[in-house]
C-alpha cells in the first residue's frame, strides 16, 4: 500500500472545511428565504395582488333628459359595433374580406384595423365599424360561423331625438378634452362623454352618475382570466326640463330659415317653455367627434348657428322698450298718462332731426295712443323729460341690463346705459340726443330676447320679479326649492331692492306668509301696470294698433304685446331724401331687426313671449305673426289646469276651481294675476 494514509488525513480535514463552507452558504439561503417570505412577505403579497388584479372602470349610463310632459329629449342609444379578435381568426385579411361582403366596410376601416392589430395584444377586440343598424347586426350574427373572431359589441351613444329643434337648450356631449381632466379616473375612459354646452354642461355632474367597476384577474400578458367583482355603478339621474318639447319644436319650425330667437316664459313662475334659436345645429354630430368640414361650416355660417341667440344675442329692444320709458316717467311722477305731444314726423334737437317711423307724423298723441301706434316722437319727449338714468333704473327692475341667471351657459347681460356709465366707459359726457334715442330703445340700449320675455312676464304678472329657469327643481321636503331656484330668487330680490328700494319689508314678509308669490314685488304701482297692459292690449286688439293684423281672434286666447323695430345702422339724410327707407331695398345685413313681445291671454296672463327676427324688417310684419302663432300654440298645448305645476314651484292658480282640477294640489293660493 502506498501512502494513502496521509492523503486521507488531508482529505478528512479539508472535507470538514468544505462542509463548513457549504453550511455557511446554505444558511445564507435560509436567511434570504426568511427575509423574503417572512419579513417582507406583506409587501410582496401586495405586489402579487397588484400584479394579479386589474381594476376596470365601467362608464355609467348618462341620465336622460325629459321635457315637462316626459317626452325624451336626450337618451342613450345602443351603439352596435362589430369587433374582431385577431387571435381567434386564422386569417385576418380573409375574415375582413368576408365581413366586407356581408356588411359594407370601406378601405379606411380595413386599414385602421390592420394598423391596430399590430399595436394591440392579440386578444384585445378591435373595432371594425360602429353604428351598425339592426339589419347589419342580424347579418353578422347569422354569418357568425363563417366569421371566426368577429363579434358584435354594444356600446352607448348619446342621442337627441329632436336634433336641431332643441340643440341650444341641450348643448351636446363630446370626448373629454385635456383641460377638463380633473383627475377623476372616469373622465379618462375612452367611452366617456362630457357635457360641453347647454343643460348637458351645467347639469353634467348630475347626469354623469357614478362609475361602476370590474375587478378582473389578469395574467402577465394582460389577458382577463376571470371577473372577481362587479359593481355596476350608478346611472346618472334623469333630468326634467320646463321645456314643452312640442312647443319647442313648433317654435323652432315657425322661425324657419330666419336668423331668429324666440322665448316663451310662464309669467307666474319664470319657467321657460320654449327657447328657440335659428338656424340651429345637430347636437348628435358632436357625440363621436364632429368632422372638420361640418365644424367649419357651422363656424363660418353667416347666421351663426352655434350662438344661442335668445340668451347670448344682444339687440336694441326698439319700441318694445317704450313700456319701460313710460313706466319710468309715470312712477317718477314726471308726467301722467294724459301727457300730450304733437307728432309732425320728427323732432328737432339742436341741429339734428330725430325722426318718427311714420314719415308724416301721428298728429296729437297721448301715452295710450303713443304705445298703441308706437309713436317715436312722443317717446323722444317722454325720455327727454324723464332722463336716461330713471329709464335705465326702471328697465333694470324688469330684468333688463343684467344676467337673469338662467341655468344654461352663455347668457349675456345686455346694457342699460346711464350717464355715469358713459362717462366711466368712454370718458365723454352723456348727450341729450342719446337720451332721446334710448327713449325708443335704440342707441346704447341692448337686451337679450330672454330679458325681453322676462320683462313682459313681469309686466303681465303684476310686477313680480320672476326669474327664468329650465331645469325643474327636484321635489324636496322644502316645498320643491332647489339651490338654483333659491339663487334665482335671491337675485330677483336684490334687483328689486337696488331698483327702487321701495319694496317694504313688511310687504315681503306678508307675501311669504301668504305663501303665494315666490318672487318679490317689483314695486311698481298697480295702476301704472294696468295702464301699460291695456295699452299693450290695444297694440294687438284695436284697429289702429301696430300689430292688429296679428291679433288672436279667439277672445279667451287673445294676446297683448308690443312691436319693435330696431335699426342696424343709421339711415343717412341722403338715403332718407331718396326715400331709401324700405327694408327690402337694402341688403340683408343692413335690414332692421324685427321684434315683438307679448303675453296671453289678455285677461289672465299666463305666458309671455319675445321674438326677435334678425334683419327681418318691421316688428309688426316679421315678428308679431310669429309671436301670435307661438302664443296660440302654447295655450293649446298647455291647458289651464296644468299651469300650476309648471316648474314645480308654487304658482298662483287662477281660482279655486282650477286648483281643484290640478292633480296633487300643490297648495298654491293667491290672487290671480291681472
Amino acid at each position: 500500500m502506498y501512502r494513502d494514509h496521509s492523503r486521507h488525513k488531508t482529505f478528512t480535514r479539508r472535507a470538514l472545511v468544505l462542509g463548513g463552507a457549504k453550511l455557511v452558504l446554505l444558511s445564507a439561503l435560509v436567511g434570504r428565504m426568511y427575509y423574503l417570505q417572512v419579513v417582507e412577505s406583506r409587501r410582496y403579497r401586495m405586489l402579487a395582488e397588484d400584479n394579479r388584479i386589474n381594476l376596470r372602470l365601467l362608464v355609467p349610463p348618462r341620465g336622460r333628459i325629459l321635457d315637462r310632459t316626459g317626452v325624451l329629449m336626450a337618451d342613450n342609444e345602443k351603439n352596435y359595433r362589430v369587433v374582431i379578435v385577431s387571435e381567434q381568426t386564422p386569417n385576418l385579411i380573409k375574415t375582413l374580406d368576408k365581413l366586407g361582403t356581408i356588411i359594407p366596410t370601406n378601405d379606411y376601416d380595413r386599414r385602421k384595423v390592420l394598423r391596430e392589430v399590430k399595436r394591440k395584444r392579440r386578444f384585445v377586440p378591435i373595432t371594425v365599424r360602429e353604428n351598425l343598424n339592426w339589419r347589419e347586426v342580424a347579418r353578422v350574427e347569422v354569418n357568425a360561423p363563417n366569421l371566426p373572431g368577429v363579434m358584435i359589441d354594444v356600446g352607448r351613444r348619446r342621442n337627441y331625438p329632436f336634433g336641431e329643434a332643441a340643440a341650444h337648450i341641450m348643448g351636446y356631449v363630446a370626448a373629454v378634452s385635456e383641460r377638463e381632466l380633473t383627475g377623476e379616473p372616469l373622465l379618462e375612459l375612452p367611452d366617456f362623454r362630457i357635457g360641453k354646452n347647454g343643460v348637458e354642461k351645467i347639469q353634467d355632474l348630475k347626469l354623469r352618475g357614478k362609475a361602476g367597476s370590474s375587478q378582473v384577474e389578469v395574467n402577465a400578458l394582460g389577458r382577463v382570466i376571470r371577473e372577481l367583482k362587479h359593481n355596476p355603478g350608478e346611472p346618472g339621474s334623469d333630468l326634467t326640463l320646463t321645456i314643452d318639447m312640442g312647443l319647442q319644436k313648433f317654435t323652432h319650425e315657425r322661425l324657419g330659415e330666419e336668423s331668429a330667437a324666440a322665448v316663451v316664459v310662464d309669467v307666474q313662475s319664470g319657467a321657460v317653455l320654449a327657447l328657440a334659436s335659428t338656424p340651429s345645429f345637430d347636437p348628435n354630430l358632436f357625440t363621436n367627434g364632429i368632422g372638420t368640414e361640418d365644424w367649419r361650416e357651422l363656424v363660418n355660417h353667416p347666421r351663426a348657428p352655434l350662438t344661442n341667440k335668445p340668451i347670448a344675442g344682444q339687440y336694441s329692444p326698439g319700441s318694445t322698450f317704450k313700456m319701460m320709458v313710460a313706466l319710468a316717467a309715470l312712477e317718477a311722477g314726471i308726467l301722467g298718462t294724459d301727457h300730450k305731444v304733437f307728432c309732425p314726423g320728427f323732432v328737432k334737437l339742436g341741429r339734428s332731426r330725430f325722426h318718427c317711423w311714420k314719415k308724416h307724423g301721428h298728429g296729437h298723441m297721448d301715452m295710450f295712443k303713443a304705445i298703441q301706434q308706437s309713436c317715436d316722437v312722443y317717446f323722444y319727449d317722454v325720455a327727454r323729460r324723464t332722463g336716461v338714468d330713471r329709464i335705465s333704473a326702471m328697465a333694470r327692475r324688469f330684468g333688463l341690463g343684467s344676467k337673469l341667471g338662467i341655468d344654461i351657459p352663455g347668457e349675456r347681460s345686455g346694457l342699460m346705459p346711464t350717464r355715469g356709465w358713459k362717462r366711466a366707459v368712454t370718458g365723454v359726457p352723456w348727450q341729450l340726443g342719446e337720451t332721446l334715442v334710448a327713449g325708443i330703445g335704440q342707441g346704447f340700449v341692448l337686451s337679450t330676447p330672454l330679458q325681453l320675455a322676462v320683462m313682459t312676464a313681469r309686466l303681465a304678472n303684476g310686477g313680480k320679479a320672476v326669474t327664468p329657469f329650465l331645469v325643474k327643481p327636484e321635489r324636496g321636503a322644502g316645498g320643491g326649492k332647489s339651490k338654483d331656484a333659491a339663487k334665482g330668487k335671491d337675485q330677483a330680490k336684490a334687483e328689486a331692492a337696488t331698483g327702487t328700494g321701495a319694496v317694504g319689508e313688511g310687504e315681503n314678509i306678508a307675501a311669504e306668509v301668504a305663501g303665494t308669490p315666490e318672487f318679490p314685488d317689483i314695486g311698481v304701482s298697480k295702476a301704472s301696470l294696468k295702464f301699460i297692459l291695456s295699452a299693450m292690449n290695444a297694440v294687438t286688439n284695436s284697429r289702429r294698433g301696430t300689430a292688429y293684423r296679428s291679433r288672436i281672434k279667439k277672445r279667451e286666447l287673445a294676446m297683448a304685446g308690443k312691436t319693435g323695430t330696431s335699426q342696424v345702422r343709421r339711415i343717412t339724410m341722403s338715403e332718407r331724401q331718396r326715400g331709401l327707407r324700405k327694408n327690402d331695398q337694402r341688403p340683408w345685413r343692413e335690414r332692421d331687426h324685427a321684434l315683438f313681445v307679448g303675453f296671453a291671454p289678455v285677461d289672465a296672463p299666463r305666458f309671455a313671449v319675445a321674438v326677435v327676427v334678425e334683419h327681418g324688417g318691421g316688428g309688426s310684419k316679421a315678428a308679431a305673426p310669429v309671436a301670435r302663432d307661438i302664443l296660440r300654440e302654447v295655450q293649446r298645448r298647455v291647458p289651464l289646469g296644468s299651469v300650476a305645476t309648471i316648474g314645480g314651484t308654487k304658482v298662483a292658480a287662477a281660482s279655486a276651481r282650477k286648483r281643484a282640477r290640478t292633480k296633487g294640489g300643490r297648495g298654491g293660493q293667491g290672487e290671480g294675476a291681472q
Partner: protein
Amino acid sequence: MSFDRFSHTDMSVRDKFWQINWGLVAIVCVIAIIGFAMLYSAANGSFDPWASRQMARFAVGLVIMFAVALIDIRLWLRSAYAIYLAALALLVAVEVAGAAGMGAQRWLSLGFITLQPSEIMKVAMILALARYFHKISAEEIARPHYLLWPLALIALPMLLVLRQPDLGTAGMLVLVSGVVFFMAGVRLWKFGVVFGAGLAMIPIGWPFLRVYQQQRILTFFNPEGDPLGSGYHIMQSKIALGSGGIFGKGFMLGSQGHLNFLPEKQTDFIFTMLAEEFGIMGGLFLLGLYVLVLIYGFAIALRSRNQFGRLIAIGVTATFFFYVFINMAMVMGLVPVVGVPLPLISYGGTSMLTLLFSFGLLIGVYIHRDIVIERYGDAQSL
C-alpha cells in the same frame, strides 16, 4: 458486518445490490416526486407536457443509476480518460453544429434524444480529475508542474463551453474542479494565485461576453432599474417568493406562477413556484432533503478507502451542492440569473440523467468503499 466479506475484490452483483445505499435512493425519489408535483402544478394541473415526461426520464435515470452503481469502480477508473475524451468530442461536435446554426448551440440531437454535452462533461471532468489525483502522491501534488495536466483537463472543455456561450456551465466546471483540487490536497496559496488571475481576467473578458450576458450581470446589481426588461424576472420571482409567506398559497394556487408572471417556471424558476405555493415551510423542507443528500455524499466520501472514490464522491456532492445553491440564490436575487436547474426538480432531460448517473457513481463508491486501489488501478486487499 463481517469485515472480510466485503473486502473481497470481487463481489457478486447480488452482494453489491444489497450494499446499495437505500436511504439515499429514497431521498432522491422523494425529491423527484416533489418535482413531479411542481411540474404538474406548473402545467395548471396537468401531467402534460412536463410531469409525465419527467417521470419517464426519472425511471430511465434510476435504471442507469443502479447500473452505474453496480459496475466495478476500477472499471470507471480505467475508462475515466476515455469518457473524458468522448465528452470532449461531443463538445466539439456541438461547436461544429453550432457554427452551422444560429446563436447559442448547446444541444446535440441524436434523433431519439437531445444531448447536452456540457452536462456530460461535468461528470466526465470529475472522473478524469479523480483518476489523475488518485495516481499522484501527496509529494507530487506539492510540485506545481504536476498541476499543469489537470489544469489543461479543465481548460479545454471550459473554452468550448464558453464559446457556446454557456456562462453557467463554465462556472460550474470551474467551481467543481476547484473543489476536487482542494480536496486532493493542492496548497491553498495556489488557489489564491488562480483567483487573482481570474479577477484580472474580468476586464479583459467582459467585452467577449454577449450583450444579454452583460445585461444579466448588470441587472443583477440593480434589478429595480429595469422592471420591464431583464430585471422583470428577478422582481417577479422575488414577488412570488415573498407573497408565498410562511405556509404558501396552496398547491396549484400560486397566482404568480399560474398567471405567467413567473418566467421559466417549469425549469430554472421552479423553486420559486414551490416556495409560492408551499411557503417558507415548503422551501425549508426541500432544502432539508438536499442537505440530507449532501450529508450522505460527505459520509460516503469519508468512508471510502480509495482516493479515486473519495474524489468522485466529493466531486459529485459538490456539483449537486452548486446546482442547489446557485439555483436558489438566483431565484432569490442573490446571484445573477444564470441558467442553472434545480437538481431533480427542474424539467430537463440531460440534467436529470447526468445527475442520476453521478448518483450512481456515488452509490458505487459506497459499494466499493473497502477496495483499496493501487496507483494504476490494481486492487489490493488488506
